């Protein structure tokens, strides 16, 4: 997927969100819908405009002549300083898309682990797996980091604050199955 189509896709998703809100607004009472309607309509129009610009770069280029984005004229200086660090360290073509997918995958793993095993088991497990598999650290430091998180969570939240931590769906299912 190219960067351009991703840009348009993201704007399209935002458009769909605004359309959903607008359709739900239609079902609301007169008073309850007044302010949301006044916001949703211009927002949707702006999003559609942005989508058109994403789909037609020439249109965006033409319109950008009418709008000055760098109001304080600092972009040349910003480019001068930040431009030199925004390339890959080894100078190779950026494998950013792959790393991005991996980052999103690991975030999903975190969500799943917390949902299934709760915080006390899920967060240390995520650290252990991340260090070992993603960062390619050795087993010993990975286990120490995970144990550190477990001890911190247990002492601070369970023992000191007595906070009712989420236990995880898996234990609920298992306890229901054993009954």
């Amino acid at each position: 997927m190219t960067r351009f189509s991703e840009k348009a896709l993201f704007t399209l998703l935002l458009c769909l969100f605004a359309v959903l809100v607008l359709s739900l607004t239609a079902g609301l009472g007169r008073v309850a819908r007044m302010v949301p309607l006044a916001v949703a309509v211009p927002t949707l129009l702006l999003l559609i405009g942005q989508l058109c610009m994403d789909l037609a770069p020439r249109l965006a280029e033409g319109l950008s002549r009418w709008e000055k984005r760098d109001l304080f004229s600092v972009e040349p200086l910003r480019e001068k300083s930040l431009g030199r660090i925004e390339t890959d360290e080894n100078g190779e073509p950026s494998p950013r898309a792959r790393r991005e997918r991996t980052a999103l995958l690991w975030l999903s793993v975190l969500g799943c682990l917390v949902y299934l095993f709760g915080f006390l088991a899920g967060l240390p497990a995520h650290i252990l797996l991340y260090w070992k598999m993603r960062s390619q650290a050795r087993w010993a430091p990975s286990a120490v980091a995970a144990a550190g998180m477990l001890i911190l969570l247990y002492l601070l939240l369970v023992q000191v604050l007595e906070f009712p931590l989420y236990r995880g769906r898996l234990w609920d299912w298992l306890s229901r199955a054993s009954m």
Partner: protein
Amino acid sequence: MSESILQSAWHGLVLVLSWPNILYPVIGTLLAMAFAFVPGLSGVTLMALAISFTLNWEPLPILLVFGAFIGGATFMGSVTAILFNIPGTTPSAATMIDGYPMARQGHAKTAIGCSAMSSALGSTFGILVLIALIPVMRRAILAFGPPEFLMLAVWGLVTIAVITTRASMVKGLAAGGIGFLISFIGFDPRTAELRYTLGSPYLHDGLGTVPVFLGIFALAEMIHLSATGRRTISGGRRMEELKGSIWKGAASVFRNFGLFLRSSIIGTVVGMIPAVGGTVAGFVAYGQAVLTAREGKERFGRGDIRGVLAPEAAHDAKDGASLVPTLAFGVPGSEGTALLLGVLTLHGLIPGKELLTTRLDLVFVLIWSLFLSNWMTSLLGVATVGQLTRLTVIRTELLIPFISGLAVLGAYVSNARIEDVAIALLFGVCGYYMKKQGWPRVPLVLALVLGPLFENNLHITLRLRRLGRIRIWSRPIAAFLMLLTLATLALPFIQARLSRRARP
């Protein structure tokens, strides 16, 4: 300055310096220093993480800690900019232009000394301006009623959407609109009718601001850090012994005091404009340093100490000044103050009349904490710079699971609902793509915080209008703000036209 203000200032200072209160700004500053030292993390990430863990705290420690977070992050970001050519925080980017060449020429300590002194004095300048403006803000705020606050919210949001650099106005305004729409989820304040809940009881009270903050500012940054793939801060470079003289660097601020004052004034003015932020302040100050230099202009960019002094003074002076619109009108000047506004609102401290009159001592607690943390960061930073450079060999990606874990835990702790974790993850992904595709995040967050106040003030204004109690021309401030909003919307187009004319 009236006696009550001086009394509040004294009371605030006593509160900050008393035991164990003093521990809060100290710990807050140390945490902010650590976060600012690691590229990819920032004071904003720290603030987002801290919101949920401090939900049950009293307002006093909250203000002490968050004041320290705002003040503590700025100088340390410049140390990595000078030593490694990587800004720890984005506003330090302008410092790199001359700071890094100075370090390469064996004047690293001189650049750091100059940065520390300029930072500390610049922040003091911004804070003094803030204190001097408190009587003016108090008088101004008394003239504000619901129509004025309504127009102020609209103007603030429009300004943030328009001025946020590197994003088009359409994106800024649409992001603000989406933030408002999200804020409408839950019960309608007037009719108690449910809106946009899709039948889920979880959404009856609306989306919690804490999970959204954590997602947009903390998780999104972790995805970004992971996607950019930086392994260590130093990039594998070996850190040589730091050379130069801290004292010589510090003294250079007094040798170039005119430049320091000009840069601090720029930082203060820029800080008061919503959403412009420290990065712009730093670059504008750098630009004026080059323009106004009487001699040696060619040295800029090759390691001139004035190129370190100017941006440092400006982006630290901005800290105090950005609290002016935040505390008086609830319109934040930066990402950090947007989060501070969220924290204040969560703890029932609504910026404006009440905060500046009956809770003025708390305002001074925030100001003193900011002052203390700025000086502490500079002094500690200079004293420990040799040891801190050892932290630069830590692989930043190893921190990602810890920060992500704390973010999802924070989202849960805020309300003890697992759905909040899903919301934080969803907004984390959304925030990452917003950042990647050039959509500004601050208008969305600000609209989410201001949404209920906006709707409430709109309803009151309309009701007053129906009852014949107000006419738009009888409210000059509201009318002025309306005109200002229109002028702000027109600003990019006017500037584009002017710059086209100026081109041959």
